[in-house]
C-alpha cells in the first residue's frame, strides 16, 4: 500500500452484457506514482481503465479517488473531479482542429480558470505548429500527443493512459515517454498506464501491477522493474 494513495480500488467487478471481465480488481496507487498495468491480451486491462473513468459501469466493488467514492459517479463528473483519460486508439475528434480538440479538454478546467494550452504546446511543440489542422489528418504519434495534451489541459491529478505506444513510431514513443515523466516530475501528476511494449514499460513505470483473469495477481515493486521480470508477464 503506497503511503499517500490517490487511487484505491477494491473488489472491482465489471463486464459487458452477461460477460464478467473484471473479477475483483484490487489496486492502490500513490500520489505522483507512475504505475503500469501489465498482462496478456484479454485479461481486463483496458476494461479496468474504462471502468476507472466510468465508461464501463462497475457491478461491484469500490473506486476511491482522492478519498472520494467514485464507482457510481458519471464519467464526466470523474473527469471534472480530476481524472484524465487517454484511450487505446486515442479517439481524437477527427473532424475538429487540434486547437478545438484541446478546447474540449480545457472545458473541464474552465471553472477553475486554468488555461493550460501554453503548457501543452510547451510539452508538445508540434501541436502548436499544427493547431489549425484537422486531428484526423495527423500521424499516429501526433494524435497520441494530442490525446495526452487534451487530457492534460484540464489539469488532472491522475492520468489513465491506455497503450500509448500502439501504432506510434518507436522514436516518437520515446519522446512521449520523456514528456510523461516530465509531466509527473513538474506537475506531480499520477499516471496509471496499460502497455504491452516492454521498452515503454521499462522507461516509464515506477512499478507494475500484473493482471490475470480479471484480477491483479502480482506486483513488480520499484527497483525490480527489469526486462526479465516484466517479460514473464507479457505475451511476447
Amino acid at each position: 500500500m503506497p503511503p499517500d494513495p490517490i487511487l484505491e480500488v477494491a473488489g472491482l467487478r465489471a463486464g459487458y452484457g452477461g460477460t464478467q471481465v473484471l473479477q475483483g480488481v484490487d489496486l492502490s496507487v500513490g500520489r505522483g506514482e507512475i504505475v503500469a498495468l501489465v498482462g496478456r491480451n484479454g485479461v481486463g486491462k483496458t476494461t479496468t481503465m474504462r471502468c476507472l473513468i466510468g465508461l464501463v459501469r462497475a457491478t461491484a466493488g469500490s473506486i476511491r479517488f482522492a478519498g472520494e467514492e467514485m464507482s457510481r459517479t458519471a464519467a464526466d463528473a470523474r473527469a471534472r473531479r480530476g481524472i484524465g483519460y487517454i484511450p487505446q486508439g486515442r479517439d481524437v475528434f477527427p473532424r475538429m482542429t487540434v486547437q478545438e480538440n484541446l478546447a474540449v479538454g480545457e472545458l473541464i478546467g474552465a471553472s477553475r480558470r486554468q488555461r493550460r494550452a501554453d503548457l501543452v504546446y510547451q510539452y508538445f511543440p508540434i501541436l502548436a505548429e499544427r493547431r489549425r489542422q484537422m486531428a484526423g489528418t495527423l500521424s499516429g504519434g501526433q494524435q497520441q500527443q494530442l490525446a495526452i495534451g487534451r487530457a492534460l489541459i484540464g489539469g488532472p491529478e491522475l492520468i489513465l493512459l491506455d497503450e500509448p505506444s500502439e501504432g506510434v513510431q518507436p522514436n516518437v514513443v520515446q519522446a512521449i515517454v520523456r514528456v510523461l515523466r516530465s509531466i509527473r516530475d513538474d506537475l506531480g501528476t499520477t499516471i496509471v498506464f496499460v502497455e504491452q511494449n516492454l521498452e515503454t514499460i521499462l522507461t516509464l513505470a515506477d512499478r507494475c501491477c500484473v493482471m490475470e483473469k480479471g484480477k491483479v495477481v502480482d506486483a513488480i515493486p520499484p527497483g525490480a522493474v527489469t526486462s526479465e521480470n516484466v517479460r514473464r508477464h507479457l505475451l511476447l
Partner: protein
Amino acid sequence: MLGNLFAGFYQFADVFAFLVLSAAGLAIIFGMMGVINMAHGEFVMCGVYVTAASYHAGLPLPLAQACGTAVAFLIGMVLEAVVIRPLYTRPLDSLLVTWGLSLVVTQGTLVLVGSTFPGIGTPLGGFRVGDYTFSAYRMVLFAAAIGVLGFVWFLFLRTRFGIQARAVMQNPGMAQALGVRRNRVYALSFGVGAGLAGFCGALYAPTMSLIPTMGSSFIVESFVTVVVGGSSVLLGTAPAAVALAVIRTGLNAWYGQIIGQIGLLVAVILIIRVLPDGFTGWLTRRTA
C-alpha cells in the same frame, strides 16, 4: 428585363428560405443524435399556433414570433429529457415514438382548439421591380434563412457549447470522459432543433391558413432537404437547399408548379443515388 431577372431570384429566394427554415431544426436533431424526429411538423405547428395566439393576445408580431420560438424550444428540451433520452440507442423506437407524438399533438389540437384558428395577415405589403409586385415579407423570410445559417455557424463553430456539441456528435463516450455533460448537450441540441422548427412556424404563421395538420406541409420539403444534405446543417442543409431551390425554381418557371414538385423529387432520388451520404458526406470526404 430587370423585373424578369428579379422574379427569378425572388422565386429562388422563396424556395431556398422555405427549405432552409423547415429543415434546419430537423438536421440538427438528426445530425447530433441520429433521431429522425417525425414530430418535426408539430414543432413547426407549435410555433405557428403560439405566434398566432400571442399576436391575437395583443403582442407585436416580432414578439409573438419570439414566443412561438421559445415555447417550441422549451417543449423540445422537456420532450428530450422525458421521452427521447431513453431511446438514443433504439432509433426505430424513437422514430415510432415521435410519429405517435405527432398524431397525438395533431388530434389533440383538433379536439382542443378546433379545426381552424384565426390567422394573421401578411405584414409589410409589397414592392415593385419592373412590371411586377413582390411581397416584402418573403424577402424577410429569405433574410431569416440566411440568418439561421449564420446562427447555426456561430453556435456550432464559435461557442463553447458548439465545441462540446461537435465533440459529442463525433464520439459521445470520449467527450463525456473529457468532462462534457452529454445529457445537457443533447437536451440543448434537441431544444435548439425544436426551437428552429418553432421559428420556422413563427415566420410562416402570417402566410398560411392555421389548421392542426399544417405541420405536414413542411414535412416533405424538410425531410427531402435533410436526406439530400446529410447530417450537417452547414455542409449539408445549405448546399442542398441551394441545389433543390435552383432545380425547383427552374422547373416551376418553365413547366409549372406540378412539374416543379415532381422534378424536385426526381432530383432527390438521383442525388441520393450518386451521394448516398448526401452533401455532408461528399464535402467531408473532399476536405479530409
